[in-house]
């Protein structure tokens, strides 16, 4: 198990406390390509944030690649994010004034890797995504599909344990969506663990396992081929 969630509960405090995750139990094996599906407000984004160590949970236990994720300092959380997780976002979240190569290399900057090596590694990832000729373009000069592939390259560069994708095709047309999903499937074929949060059934269909979440609970498991 690369991801093991045990009895996770999360409540957002407020005038009316919002119990968004209720006793979540979930295990994800290494090398899985799975999707978390659910209506908006079902708690899937909160789940993804907890998986990505971007948010904390109240009770339960979350073990990521053998590390218990609980009561971490900001520094430790940042370090684990950098080492274990690659993020892919719906709105790409590339830094607009940095070219594709610099964007891809940025996580390595925070790991203290020298510029020359960083850029060589970033170039490698861009080549893998078929974007070598776009390396020195700014995000604004790239198409949606290209931007998302740059974001995937950035997620991959630290050789993370898992890739967390939040609606990765949400801002793309159906053709580029298929293209991006193919990239994910190819990566999965190479052994990468990938978790995709989506509300798009077509995306869910292309994963090996769909985890449905509604009203803060995981629905009974349904195993696809």
């Amino acid at each position, binding site marked *: 198990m690369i991801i093991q969630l045990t009895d996770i509960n999360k409540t957002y405090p407020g005038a009316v406390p919002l119990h968004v995750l209720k006793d979540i139990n979930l295990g994800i094996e290494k090398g899985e390509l799975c999707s978390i599906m659910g209506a908006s407000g079902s708690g899937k984004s909160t789940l993804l944030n907890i998986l*990505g160590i971007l948010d904390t949970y109240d009770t339960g236990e979350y073990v990521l690649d053998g590390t218990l994720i609980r009561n971490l300092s900001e520094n430790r959380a*940042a370090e684990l*994010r950098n080492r274990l997780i690659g*993020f892919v*976002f719906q709105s790409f*979240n*590339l830094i607009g004034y*940095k070219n594709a190569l610099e964007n891809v290399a940025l996580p390595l900057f925070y790991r203290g890797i020298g510029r020359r090596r960083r850029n060589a590694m970033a170039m490698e990832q861009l080549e893998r995504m078929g974007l070598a000729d776009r390396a020195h373009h700014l995000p604004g000069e790239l198409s949606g599909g290209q931007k998302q592939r740059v974001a995937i390259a950035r997620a991959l560069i630290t050789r993370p344990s898992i890739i967390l994708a939040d609606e990765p095709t949400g801002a793309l047309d159906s053709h580029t969506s298929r293209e991006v999903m193919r990239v994910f499937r190819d990566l999965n074929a190479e052994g990468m663990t990938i978790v995709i949060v989506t509300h798009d059934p077509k995306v869910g269909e292309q994963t090996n396992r769909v985890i449905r979440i509604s009203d803060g609970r995981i629905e009974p498991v349904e195993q696809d081929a």
Partner: protein
Amino acid sequence: MTLAIFDLDNWREIGATLARNKTRTFLTAFGIFWGTAMLAMLHGGATGLAGTMSRNFEGFATNLAAIVPGETSMAYKGFNKGMSWSLTVDDIDRVCRLTDKIDLASPLISRYGNMAFGTKTTTGRIGGVAPDFWRIQEVTLHAGRTLNDGDERHNSKVTLLGKNLSDELFGPDPQQAIGKYVSINGLYYKCVGVASQKGEGSIMGRVDDSAYLPLNPMRVAYNMGNKVDIFVFTARDGCTPKEILPVIKRVVSAAHPIHPDDEKALWMVDISEMFEMVGNIFTGIDLLALFVGAGTLMAGVIGVGNIMWIIVRERTREIGIRRAIGAKPRDIIVQILSESSALTVVAGTAGISFACMVLYLAEAMTAVPGHAPAGFQLTFSAALWILAVFLLLGTAAGLIPALKAMKIKPVEAMKDK
């Protein structure tokens, strides 16, 4: 992770973010630039102003005073008020005999006249002075000597020419004048020296435009009796001219029909008081420079803080992304603070360089040949101080925005899609 300051990558990162919004960077930089430039210019300007003002007093003894006769303001011994009177050589002798607080003393008489040598003629002031005069006002001697006791005692017909007069009569080489006989108002005097004044100030006309004669020969030659125009003296060490004034008043009112209580019959120009006044003015200028400087400094610093605040707000999302992909809170703080301090150093250095150029121009414009430079300058240590203060405050100004940036949670920052 290594220290951020020595990491070239960090500087590339900072350069990239600052270059991103050129207008904003420029405007902030200009604020700092102007702040440092103003501070540096005020500082150097105050020094220079002090220098130009003290040039006026160069060459003068600091405890110098001059007695100038005026008009009586009280009727006395049958004389109406409003009567004018003159100091005499005898008055001065009596004063010097009555008090031991006078160090150097010289009467001064002054007339205008024509000077001629060969075919060349010119006009200028003729000054009669005692030998002490040359110790009261030090002059720059270009050739020969000043007038001395021997000249006075022997009623020698000698003259010390001002540099300008010597130039007109003998050409630029002052040595040419020495030993020549110059006609002054029709009588011939042997030129024994050529001099010019050291400072900007002078007593009864510029030295450069005057021909000085020993006092007695001048009085005799031009039929002046024993009247003198001014009495200049210096107080002995440990005394001030003010202490001597009552003695002078007593002597004068005994010898002339001047009421003992008449305050306006004579007046005393006390250089020591002027020195003090000028000293106060300098302190005032310094305080003003400090005050205005502190103001511009604060404005500049607040500008930096303000712009860093905007930068942080504008880049909330970017900071969120950076945090998500592994930037630690410290990385973000270091980044924001480095940006503000890099901006401060570059703009501050530019400001100081600019101020140095302005001060150089001021120095060049106030330069007077033969005088020491006014000192429109910034010492290296003062420049470093200004820069250090700006760097410290500039970094401090970036601190609040940086702390705010540090608290940005990646999730919240990226939420606004």
